[in-house]
């Protein structure tokens, strides 16, 4: 199946020589909910605006529905865009805002009215038609913006940070609304940007992790979570314990890494060249760590001191101090919570199969492992 | 593609054509004509004679001093008079409504016709004007006093017609100052005069410079007020206009070139020191 959006080696340079996109390769399929995730300033909005045609690209190729988009202006592309600050036209009421795109397509007013009312109903906006953007709440404004982008039924719907600028409860509601709508209408690919990993992971059919104008990794959320290609991806998606180390020994399908808290065993990374002596990041997800008083006979065990708990409702994050003052966190379901005592000793253990040894800090060149781990 | 690449410049075209035709070309011609012996565009003889004449003329120092002295002097005096007014407006009048009323009041006369504003000075300061009438009625003087037709008249009229240009930009700069900056300085135990100088005054500089520019440029080009109400005090603008009226065009062009060059030099130095774009951004 060919992608509805195909991006090849896309480069975008802003005035003043800011290289915002450094060569993006991406393919997005029809009916897909695709999430672009990355830290602030990594180029998410730039990529969306380039796809939308609001920005020109300097190099590379962009195809929508198989058509080359070079020199095709925004208004001739089969997309629509919900901007970060919604950009609702302040001089038009809700109805006219939503009807705008249909009017530009020269539909007749009867049909426009039907489509607009249908979309307003879908987004629980009935009764607000006559209000102006400054007369409705932030959450309503956001839904009007979605309605306006959605009503023209584009092949690609671009959503730039639709979940920012509103309170947490509304974010949750809007996220599930988006998911519902995506399931209800067919033939439209959603591309959404966010810097929030919770929303990103829960919404995405597939996602891309972006970093300084490059893509770190593309895949299903759990694929990226379980098999991160770079330390950056690993640390950006979900919580993780990371230890700096050096590969000491390579077995058939496992490696031993020398770290500050001892020799740790993990699955062997997929790299052919000689691994011994490489500086690597050793990672273990907090929920894979078992805690015991005696130290089981596990593949990896570290003796730690219990420090404190972070309470999150249905689960708890327990913070331990390992040798050399290295912190390790472990998550435990609340119903299963043992009675930890501050400054008591515990053994933390995990299996080698759950741990990963990651060689590449990032696809961005010149990023040092140490900086990435201790830098923030 | 040409259109894609330069399309955004296309809209500038009408403006550029007009400014080139009505400003840039005339300015270039002024410079060219200023080197002519006789005004003719057919095989003109170019010479430095006009400039030599200008430098050699015994009147030149007086004219230059009058022109730039009066303009810079008026500008400084106007700023000095306008700054406190802007300060009071920005910091001492709390009600925004009253402030806006005062500003509108100040704005109105600026748009009133120029002649209307200046001819009114005769019945005020003239020999049979209101001031002399009062002085005589109160037996302070016996004979009418000559109040019009001097440098001081010019200064007063210019101050009066231009003070708004000083107040307004300074006021705009002052209200942009974050009050927390001033509070922070106070908390750090800065004495009032240092708070004023180091924070308020320095941050209001773009406004001061814009105000200076307005008044300086306005007075520099104004030859009518000096001619009518200052007893024909010799300024460059007046000299240019009388040479031009008598069709001594090359020499008028030479004087114009010098006027423009000095004016732009003064403004260039000012704009280098203070970034006036801060005021609109």
């Amino acid at each position, binding site marked *: 199946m060919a992608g509805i959006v195909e991006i090849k080696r896309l480069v975008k340079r802003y005035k003043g020589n800011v290289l915002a996109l450094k060569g993006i390769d991406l393919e997005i399929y029809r009916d897909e909910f695709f999430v672009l995730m990355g830290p602030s300033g990594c180029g998410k909005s730039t990529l969306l605006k380039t796809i*939308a*045609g*609001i920005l020109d690209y300097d190099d590379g190729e962009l195809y929508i529905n198989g058509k080359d988009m070079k020199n095709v202006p*925004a*208004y001739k592309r089969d*997309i*629509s865009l919900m901007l970060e600050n919604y*950009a609702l*036209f*302040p001089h038009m009421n809700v109805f006219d805002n939503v009807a*705008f*795109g249909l009017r*530009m397509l020269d539909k007749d007013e009867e049909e426009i009215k039907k489509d607009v009312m249908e979309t307003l109903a879908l987004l629980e906006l009935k009764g607000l038609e006559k209000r102006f953007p400054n007369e409705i709440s932030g959450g309503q404004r956001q839904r009007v913006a979605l309605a306006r982008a959605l009503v*023209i039924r584009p092949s690609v719907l671009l959503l730039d940070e639709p979940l920012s600028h509103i309170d947490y409860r509304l974010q949750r509601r809007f996220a599930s609304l988006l998911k519902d709508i995506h399931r209800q209408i067919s033939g439209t690919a959603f591309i959404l940007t966010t810097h929030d990993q919770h929303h990103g992971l829960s919404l995405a059919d597939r996602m891309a992790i972006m970093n300084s104008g490059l893509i770190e990794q593309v895949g299903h959320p759990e694929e990226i979570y379980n098999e991160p290609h770079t330390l950056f991806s690993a640390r950006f998606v979900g919580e993780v314990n990371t230890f700096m180390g050096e590969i000491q020994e390579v077995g058939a399908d496992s490696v031993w890494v020398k770290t500050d808290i001892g020799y740790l065993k993990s699955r062997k990374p997929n790299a052919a060249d000689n691994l011994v002596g490489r500086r690597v990041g050793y990672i273990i997800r907090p929920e894979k760590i078992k805690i015991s008083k005696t130290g089981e006979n596990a593949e990896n065990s570290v003796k730690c001191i219990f420090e404190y708990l972070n309470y999150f409702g249905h689960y708890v994050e327990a913070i331990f101090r390992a040798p050399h003052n290295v912190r390790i966190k472990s998550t435990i379901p609340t119903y299963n919570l043992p009675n930890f005592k501050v400054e008591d000793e515990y053994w933390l253990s995990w299996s080698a199969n759950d741990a990963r040894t990651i060689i590449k800090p990032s696809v961005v060149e010149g990023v040092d492992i140490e900086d990435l781990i201790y830098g923030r | 593609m040409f259109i894609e690449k330069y399309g*955004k410049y296309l*809209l*500038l075209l009408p*403006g550029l054509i007009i400014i080139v*035709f*009505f*400003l840039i070309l*005339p*300015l270039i011609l002024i410079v060219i004509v200023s080197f002519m012996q006789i005004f003719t*565009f057919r095989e003109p003889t170019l010479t430095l004679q006009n400039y030599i004449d200008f430098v050699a003329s015994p009147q030149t120092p007086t004219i230059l001093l009058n022109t730039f002295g009066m303009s810079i002097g008026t500008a400084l005096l106007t700023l000095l008079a306008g700054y406190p*007014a802007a300060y*009071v407006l920005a910091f*001492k009048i709390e009600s925004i409504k009253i402030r806006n009323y005062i500003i*509108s009041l*100040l704005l*109105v*006369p600026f*748009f*009133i*016709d*120029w*002649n*209307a*504003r200046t*001819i*009114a000075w005769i*019945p*005020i300061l003239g020999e*049979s004007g209101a001031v002399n*009438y009062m002085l005589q009625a109160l037996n302070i003087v016996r004979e009418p006093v000559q109040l019009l037709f001097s440098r001081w008249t010019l200064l007063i009229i210019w101050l*009066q017609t231009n003070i708004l240009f000083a*107040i307004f930009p300074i006021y705009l700069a002052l209200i942009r100052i974050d009050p927390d900056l001033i509070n922070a300085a106070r908390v750090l135990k800065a004495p009032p005069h240092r708070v004023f100088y180091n924070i308020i005054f320095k941050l209001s500089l773009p406004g001061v410079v814009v105000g200076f*520019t307005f008044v300086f440029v306005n007075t520099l080009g*104004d*030859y*009518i007020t000096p001619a*009518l109400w200052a007893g024909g005090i010799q300024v460059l*603008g007046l000299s*240019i206009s009388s040479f*031009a009226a008598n069709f001594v*065009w090359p020499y008028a062009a030479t004087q*114009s*070139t010098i006027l*423009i060059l000095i*004016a*732009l030099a003064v403004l260039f130095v000012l704009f280098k020191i203070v970034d006036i774009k801060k005021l609109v951004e």
Partner: protein
Amino acid sequence: MGVWNFVGKVYIAFIIALIYLPVAFMIILSFKSGASISFPIERFTLDWYIKPPTGEYAAYLSLFYDRQVFQALQNSVVVSSLVAMISMFLVTTLALTLRRRIAGRDQLFYLFLLGFLTPGVAVGLGLNFLFNLLNLEFSIWSAAFINVIYAVPFGLILMMARFNPDLLLYEQAGSSLRASPLRVFRRITLPLIIYEVISAAILGFLLSWGEVIRTQFALKGIGTLSTFIEVQLGVNPLTPKWYAAGTLLSVASFVGLAIFAYLLSKTTR
């Protein structure tokens, strides 16, 4: 503290009085009877506005019966209307282009600022040279354009300082919703800046309405009302008639200004 506040307010009052003093005198004098403009004033009349003609000397004609005044007024209205429309168009196109960070933006901005920074005498003289070189005749149009050059920088600064910072976003939203550039301008940009556009027109009107020097250089014949009065002042004795003319001119600018202020206040967000 209290004392200084009081002094400050008195100072503001003083400045206002200083500015209004000549205006007040101009209005009072325009109602004075007799040809002299000296004090004290014995009697107030409307003679200088509407008295039917008796003498043949222009200065002693009342405003209403002075055909030259009407001609000059007509010129004023035509020139100022042209300036209003042309500078409205230019300011809008320039401001819309220069708000983007295009290459050469600062240089272009200063280039247009030059129209205000160059003394009017010099521009006027140079335009005479140009018209002489090209064998062109001065007309209403030359008078309009020399004023346009002067009015555009004011309008440009006004418009750029007041642009809605989100304007570009609205336009982007529009073009992603299938609106062609022309439709984006008509449906989104123009409605959102319409008051600024009209303000620029009125500003151009008012600035050229009171301008003497530039107009004098670029318009031969009777001139606009402002230049006409200026010439009359040099030739004829000063009578209350000219104060009446000034009063009328001022009333006209005042009406314009009131509209201007109203429009500006409408857009204050």
